[in-house]
């Protein structure tokens, strides 16, 4: 148990160099590129005097290593700068909008896992059947779908033609009040408040954007599940398990699926990278008030501190997600103790 804790600590320590690299790149993106960062940070409306004031305030008249030290120091104090657009600290803005993005991303991933994993398993078990072909078509078409286009199509079909979905504007229709904030996830908060009506209203708003993102992530997950299941099903221990007379159910779920799960979880790490990017596009299509649409607004307004804070926040989120995935390996496969890494 002690060894395990040490290994866990080591794995967490391994993310530190990556985090350092992420911070360094995000620093370099602002300071070492052509153009005047002071002009960026001062905003579009700045005159020469306020640009100069910004330069001194940000320490841009110092050397690069000195600036980097100041930048890292600011980060440790949670200071990501001030957004020109909202006039508030970037960190406050991001923290306020992050739950909306997470709610969308996580429900999309949950939805896509619920569909893709059984589909992949089924396609592997019935290799060559119509399910397998359906899976293949879905996988090839799925990776070619531009998320923003799928979103627009879904709006057309489900909002305009069928009228099932509410208008694609944000997390909650304006006739409802947001539930009292506990987690920031409207679905959970409304349940905690015992407000079923708000829950279903939030769910209806969430359905289309989550489906859009889920369609996008379906392909890699289904593909990997199918491949991993095929490998597992053709291995010796499955033959042995079958020969020993275990029920097909036990063989499939207790043996094959459990072993196939590891590569599937690895794929999830890659899928997260796509999802966090696609999130930005989907949030713009559905006017979802998350950090993605915040970044898009900031980009259009050349609100540089906000964009930089967003890029850094996303990278940190991604590093943490990958860490969680690595840690979950140990739960799935007890043989992995991190010590060998």
């Amino acid at each position: 148990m002690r060894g395990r804790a040490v290994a866990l600590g080591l794995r967490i320590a391994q993310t530190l160099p990556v985090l350092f690299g992420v911070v360094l790149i995000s620093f370099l993106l602002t300071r070492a590129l052509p153009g005047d960062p002071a002009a960026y940070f001062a905003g579009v409306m700045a005159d020469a005097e306020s640009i100069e004031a910004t330069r001194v305030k940000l320490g841009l008249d110092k050397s690069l290593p000195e600036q980097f030290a100041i930048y890292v120091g600011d980060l440790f104090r949670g200071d990501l700068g001030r957004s020109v657009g909202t006039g508030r600290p970037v960190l406050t803005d991001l923290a306020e909008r992050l739950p909306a993005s997470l709610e969308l991303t996580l429900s999309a991933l949950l939805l896509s896992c619920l569909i893709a994993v059984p589909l992949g398993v089924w396609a592997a078990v019935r290799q060559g059947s119509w399910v397998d072909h359906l899976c293949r078509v879905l996988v090839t078409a799925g990776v070619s779908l531009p998320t923003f286009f799928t979103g627009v199509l879904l709006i057309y079909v489900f909002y305009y033609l069928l009228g099932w979905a509410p208008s694609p504007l944000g997390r909650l229709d304006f006739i409802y009040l947001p539930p009292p904030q506990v987690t920031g996830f409207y679905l959970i908060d409304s349940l905690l408040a015992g407000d079923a009506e708000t829950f279903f209203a939030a769910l209806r708003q969430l359905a289309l954007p989550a489906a859009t993102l889920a369609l996008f992530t379906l392909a890699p997950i289904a593909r990997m599940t199918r491949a991993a299941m095929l490998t597992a099903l053709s291995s010796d221990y499955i033959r042995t398990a079958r020969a020993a007379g275990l029920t097909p159910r036990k063989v499939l779920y207790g043996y094959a699926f459990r072993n196939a799960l590891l590569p599937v979880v690895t794929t999830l790490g890659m899928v997260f990278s796509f999802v966090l990017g696609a999130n930005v596009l989907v949030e713009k299509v559905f006017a979802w008030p998350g950090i993605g649409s915040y970044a898009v607004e900031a980009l259009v307004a050349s609100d540089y501190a906000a964009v930089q804070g967003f890029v850094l926040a996303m990278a940190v989120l991604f590093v943490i997600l990958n860490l969680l995935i690595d840690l979950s390996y140990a739960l799935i496969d007890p043989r992995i103790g991190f010590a060998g890494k």
Partner: protein
Amino acid sequence: MTDAPAPSHSNSARAHLVYVLRDNPVTLIAFALCAFFVLSALIGPYLVPHDPLATNAARALQPPSFDHWFGTDSLGRDVFSRVIVATRLDLTISVAAVALSFVIGAVLGAVAGYWGGWWDVVLNRIFDTIMAFPLFVLAMGIVAALGNTVENIIYATAIINIPFYARLVRAEVNIRREAGFAQAARLAGNSHLRVVAFHIFPNALPPMMVQVSLNLGWAILNAAGLSFIGLGVRPPTPEWGIMVAEGANFIVSGQWWVALFPGLWLMLAVFTFNLMGDGLRDLVDPRRRT
């Protein structure tokens, strides 16, 4: 490798190509579609029935008709002409970006794989760090930092793709560094540079071509996504991503054609390159067939 291949070899390669194409007609379709896109990029702008930039307020938001095959947008511009003309810009962005990352990735990967040591460690750390970002988000950050132009979309897309190529080349070069033919070439008096460039590197080309084809689709998606959120291409330039963005404003009132056709073309282009990548993989490495 540099000698002219023996005729029998080229015959068997052709036979293999014919065999694979016959075995998998989908690949044939993909190549045909690819030819279609390349043709529309090359000569499309001279053939389209309307000027893609000509506005006509009297004919705004017309549904598809015989005169306007894909309808007209909010300014009365012909959607069909714009979709076809946009092909050139979209393909240029993705091909340029992929070419850039191909060249830079090949050089960096070869250096890391052949000389190893310090170079290898530093380059690998850099690639790791790039991959630690959600790639689309990093591209957004780069475009925001470099400035909002089409060239910078190309650079950003190239930068986020470099690690894929560099890693591939590094692995391919590294396993052949001490191979017999490489040592023989060195013994024959070739410089290290020559050995890497002309003896070892060509072996990495087949897997790289597969990567290129798979990457092209992704690069188009990436570029279109960036212009969808208002980066890079400026209106009124026709480009698929920006056209979908414009059309998205009218989809809630039922004018589906403004967004549908550019989106469909974008999807088809990405689909084509993905299929081609799968087909090329079958040609290059039959074992990895799925």
